[in-house]
């Protein structure tokens, strides 16, 4: 039972990391109706920028700010050269444009900062917390806990931003209908830059956390693929959905990775590890068949 809880908690905490990437998706989708496939590439780009700037002699905090500036520049360029030209196109077209964008960023980032795998130290130690281990016997990494704390703060800030500021309201209007928002006098192009910058910031936080755990490398682009099932489960438009979805997927994935291969092995024999790759997808898919809009998504009504 103790083993079970250890895996469960480990899964929940790694789910927080998935949520962080999923948050970036949700922000852009909520605010502009664009399904941003490039989020994973943005995580990679941001993390690589931090490391690249640190290699040029900047301290961590300055490198992080510098990387944020880089992400803002990227947002402006994206708005100027991609989104502005595709206003009011179908969502699928915009989605494919972000696939193009992700390839572009995946090529640009190593071209600017080099492509070798590099460590990134945030000064948070990755050790089990002794007090929790002594009282309950469950291993909880201090790094994971810190990441969860950072994610919580970020989510609170974003929720405030969407609910309480006029920009937040404008963002939601843009998401509903580009054309209508434009004719109401909402500066669509500025809104886009703002929201892509905010999601660049989320990508930066995610990239630094992931990067300090696994090293800053090309595999970071795969974080996007981890975030997709989270999104489906939570609903594309819901910030709490991204968090809850992340927790569920993280926990389900780790538990399945431990228990399902054993089950298969007793049936068929052989080694069945590595189901982490597809389990979240199938899990989310089965959930969709029951509730097509996700946990917290908005029910979509078609009109002819």
């Amino acid at each position, binding site marked *: 039972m103790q083993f079970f809880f250890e895996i469960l908690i480990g899964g929940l905490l790694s789910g927080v990391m998935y949520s962080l990437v999923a948050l970036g998706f949700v922000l852009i989708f909520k605010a502009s109706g664009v399904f941003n496939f490039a989020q994973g590439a943005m995580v990679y780009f941001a993390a690589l920028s931090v490391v690249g700037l640190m290699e040029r002699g900047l301290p961590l905090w300055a490198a992080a700010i510098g990387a944020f500036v880089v992400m803002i520049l990227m947002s402006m360029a994206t708005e100027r050269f991609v989104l502005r030209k595709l206003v009011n*196109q179908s969502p699928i077209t915009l989605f494919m444009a972000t696939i193009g964008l992700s390839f572009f960023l995946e090529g640009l980032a190593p071209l600017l900062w080099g492509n070798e795998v590099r460590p990134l130290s945030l000064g948070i130690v990755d050790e089990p917390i002794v007090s929790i281990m002594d009282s309950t016997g469950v291993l909880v990494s201090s790094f994971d806990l810190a990441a969860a704390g950072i994610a919580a703060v970020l989510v609170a800030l974003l929720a405030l931003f969407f609910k309480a500021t006029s920009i937040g309201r404008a963002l939601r209007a843009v998401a509903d209908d580009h054309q209508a928002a434009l004719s109401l006098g909402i500066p669509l192009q500025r809104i886009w830059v703002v929201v892509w910058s905010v999601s660049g910031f989320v990508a930066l936080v995610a990239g630094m956390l992931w990067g300090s755990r696994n090293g800053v490398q090309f595999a970071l682009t795969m974080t996007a693929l981890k975030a997709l099932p989270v999104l489906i489960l939570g609903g594309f438009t819901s910030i709490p959905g991204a968090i809850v979805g992340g927790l569920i997927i993280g926990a389900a994935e780790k538990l399945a990775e431990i228990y399902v291969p054993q089950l298969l092995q007793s049936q068929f024999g052989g080694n069945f590890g590595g189901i982490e790759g597809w389990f979240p997808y199938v899990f989310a898919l089965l959930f969709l068949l029951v509730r097509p809009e996700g946990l917290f998504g908005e029910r979509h009504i078609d009109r002819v």
Partner: protein
Amino acid sequence: MFYREAGQFKTSYVADSQIFPIRQDRIAVCSLLVVAFGILPWIASEYWLTAILVPFLVFSLAALGLNLLTGYAGQLSLGTAAFMAVGAYASYNFQLRIEGMPILASFALGGVCAALVGIAFGLPSLRIKGFYLAVATLAAQFFVLWVLTKFPWLSNNSSSGVITAQKISVFGVDVDTPVRKYLFVLGVVTLMALIAKNLVRSHIGRAWMAVRDMDVAAEVIGIPLMRVKLLAFAVSSFYCGVAGALYAYCYLGSVEPDGFSLDLSFRILFMIIIGGVGSILGSFLGAAFILLLPIFLDSTLPTIATVLHLPFTNATVSHIQLMVFGGLIIFFLIAEPHGLARLWQIAKEKLRIWPFPH
């Protein structure tokens, strides 16, 4: 002037419902086929046959399959490579396990297996659409590859799931030289392209397009959504499955599951975006473009680098390739959302009135 329909009167229903109703099109297609079947095998070098023409045809077929699903039926799919893998592995197993199985039959059965898998992963399309569905097809991508690596039976207990294609012979002729492989692939692709061309102008194709344009409206006018969508998944996966089998048997010889990665799926998606979504011709143009672009960049980038005195390594070239790919996708979506096929259409319209402007 050169492409004028005036004066070509159709006086019977048969004449009106030909595949290529305009005489110039018929001549163009026929001469293209004559060149492809009769002349190219003689003049093309071995490198061109094995490294460019065969993969071009194979990828065209896969792109055609994806185009039927995404371009005509409007269901976005990111799992093309998985369906190709199913086709390749299924054909391999039919050939391996059943004594004396004709190769064409095992290709067809491989396609059928891919179609069944496609239907299974297309089932969610009845409840969900758009992006949600794209993620569902990603599930197919990861799940299929995992199954292929974890069940050694499927690859005849080879290490890490590598299969080596058996020698094939069609109607008693061994398909072993580059020219024969090329002709065989060309034959299959030509046949299937013609079938696809016919399919999309039949009632099935029209139903697909209605679903693509607005599925609720299509349902209202009496199109059975479930059947039409699942049929699109089945046909598309069948095409991808056969393409996968050809990929294994006639292009690479031996393949592993990782060869059918998400990257390959994306490349095929790019082919249809650049070639033209919802166009048979576009699948071919896009495949040619995506296949030739890296070759072109590989040969030109180092030259440009030496001219400009830039330090270029192989890694740099591959990064620039990624950027060029991404940039081109965006460029095409902005400048010509209907892809290269549309450019050809514009050219035909210009030829119609050339040399006079009106």
